[in-house]
């Protein structure tokens, strides 16, 4: 049975993913810039998967390794996007 703190953990993850998913989807449609908001959209998907694993109390290291690795890619993708949008990427 899922514990109280596991529920808090999973719920906070789910709430964050809903907020990100919702706003990034709207922005993608509204501004018609899918690739720019895609990393946030993907991060919401990763968060949804993570919260599902938490709700089922699955904390297997090997599964979580692949759930955490995308964050590195997503954040760097965001840095690249920020550089492009900012109009000046120095390298």
């Amino acid at each position: 049975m899922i514990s109280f703190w596991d529920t808090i953990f999973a719920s906070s993850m789910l709430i964050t993913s809903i907020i990100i998913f919702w706003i990034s989807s709207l922005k993608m449609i509204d501004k018609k810039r899918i690739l720019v908001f895609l990393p946030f959209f993907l991060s919401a998907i990763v968060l949804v998967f993570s919260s599902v694993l938490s709700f089922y109390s699955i904390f297997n290291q090997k599964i979580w390794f692949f759930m955490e690795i995308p964050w590195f890619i997503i954040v760097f993708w965001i840095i690249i996007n920020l550089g492009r949008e900012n109009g000046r990427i120095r390298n």
Partner: protein
Amino acid sequence: MKMKLRTSIVLLCFMLALIGTIAHTYINFQTTNEVLTEEVYEHLETTTQSRAHHIEHFIEEQKNKILIAATHQELSNEELKEIRDTNREYTQMCVLNSNGKIIACSEESQIGKDKSNDDYFIEGKNGVHITGIYFSKTLGDIALAVSAPQGEGNVLVARIDINILNEITTDRTGLGKTGETYLINKESLLLTPSRFMINNILVQEVNTVNAQNCINELGGNTTEHTGHNAITSFLDYRGELVLGAHHYISGIEWCLLVEIEEAEVLGIVKEKLLQKFIISVVIILLLVFLISFFVGGYLEKIYLKKKMKGNISKFGKILSKIKLKYFLIFALIFTIGCFFLITSFFQGWQNAAFYDDIPDLLALMAFVSLLFFSFHLKNIHARKFIFIGALFSIIDRILQTILEEYIFAFGVISTTYWIPGVIFGFIGWIIIFLGFIEVVK
């Protein structure tokens, strides 16, 4: 300009307090940890020696008792019964003649049986002898016997109640919920019940580091530990990480093993220490934040009143001129530094929880890069949002790495410890997202 002075003061104070408190608590944690670990080790060593002396005394007592009984030149069945009844350790007493046949016994049904091939007869002819724990076909149970020469070529044998020995080894005083003491013989077979294996006597083989160290010492004339420490950390017969000590019982080739789960003895202590460490850091940082926030605001007012000119965003300007590749190099160095610092609190970098740490450290590196990249942003609101969001995410990743290392070293802890970091991380991610929207606007 108004926000910048206050923010600079708050950030400067916050960073100084963060470095100061972490450095202070780190030294404190290490010192306290060493003292407590030393105490735990001493306690375990004392318990081992005390139990071992208790067992040695018990065996010596049995030898002395049988020698006193053997001073009688002749012993009748009634006399043997009387001796048996006055000694709570004895379950049976018999006299064997020079051919190994029972000629008198407290259990008369045993008279006439041939025991010439039994160890206690063969060894008992030459002098007082205590057999190792063995399976008796006559009794159909585990037995322990002591024998000594008596009269003219006879051997006096007493069977000892094994439960009395078990009472000594199964006494859990001072051993907590997971501690245990048990005996093994030179073949590594379990001789007395262990906490987790009650019915495996003379069946279960114990091939742990502790058992091996003790067996290697058998036959030596010293109780000094050579080639290993008195207390060692190893995986027990269940595969659990335990702290263990050993003592060989002289004259009988038994090993007394004392083991207790490391998570119980050191885990609780370290969990409490870590709890205090986190609470004190959070309180200090909160206080510093509040004080610097108000002091910063006050100084800002004075600054504006006096219309002093100065380049207070100089640091930000310098950072905005640094190329991204240097930020990446710094982020990599910072991440590696964090890894070595955090693991040094626990089991060292060689025994780090690499599987858990690698994704978090990669994410940490990415967030540090993002934090520095925020200085390149033209939009001031986006810069603030992404800076604060990245800072929150960095805190989250550092906390996660600490907790993962802790779990790897001492076992699972409550999920409550994950919550503060998780909240920091998710809030940080949302703030980064809001900053990103500002840039794309």
